[in-house]
């Protein structure tokens, strides 16, 4: 059993929205081209705002199917996939700062684009959170099903660190 198509779809077609350079696009061009870019931006923000619910729904379906079918989905693959997307979005952190600067300037100038910037930032953060939290749900789900292995129980931290081959602090 592979990953559910809705999850793959929700993650795969996120790329164009992720890569749209909001700050740069609004700082360049004529008034007409700016209006056009604003319209495009509204579409992108609306799309971003639907993502957390779409990803959540796809993940719920994944967890349900794992509960019903004892063979379960490929959890390792799903966890890795969510982390890859989270990392890819995280790399845009400097870009987020550009949007915050743009938002501050728009607010000072009374430009209504401030609202769009806000929505973009909130949507972006919400996606990062949902990717992180759902990945952790899958990690816990996997931990419930897995056998713990045959390591001993330690009541001394130094003995544990020795077993883990981690030098103590």
């Amino acid at each position: 059993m592979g990953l559910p198509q809705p999850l793959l779809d929700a993650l795969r077609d996120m790329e164009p929205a992720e890569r749209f350079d909001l700050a740069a696009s609004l700082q360049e061009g004529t008034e007409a081209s700016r209006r056009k870019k604003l319209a495009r931006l509204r579409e992108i923000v609306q799309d971003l705002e639907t993502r957390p619910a779409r990803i959540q729904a796809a993940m719920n379906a994944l967890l349900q199917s794992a509960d019903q079918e004892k063979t379960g989905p490929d959890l390792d693959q799903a966890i890795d996939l969510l982390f890859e997307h989270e990392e890819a979005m995280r790399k845009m952190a400097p870009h987020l700062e550009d949007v915050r600067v743009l938002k501050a300037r728009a607010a000072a100038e009374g430009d209504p684009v401030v609202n769009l910037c806000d929505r973009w930032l909130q949507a972006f953060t919400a996606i990062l959170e949902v990717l992180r939290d759902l990945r952790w749900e899958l990690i816990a789900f996997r931990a419930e099903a897995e056998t713990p292995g045959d390591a001993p129980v330690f009541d001394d931290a130094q003995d544990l660190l020795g077993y883990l081959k981690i030098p103590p602090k």
Partner: protein
Amino acid sequence: MTGPVRTKPSARFLKSLAKIGQPVASRVATALERFHAAPETPGLNFEAFKNRPGFFTIRVGRNFRILLKAESDEDGPYFLLADIADHDDTYS
């Protein structure tokens, strides 16, 4: 919490720890030492995992968490170190 804290690393935890590698190892050591000494130590953020009874997490630096599962054997309760993974706390 009463009595000494006992922990057992799971096979998954060992695998994930090896994957994460040495740069995080010293932070893992600090977190586990603190957890054994006093799980409620501020900064460890020892807390129940949402919607999964018996599961808890502790923080390892700002970017990782250890997943714990409450278990018991003939000597009493212990925590299974179920997994360790990236958990960025800076989003919100």
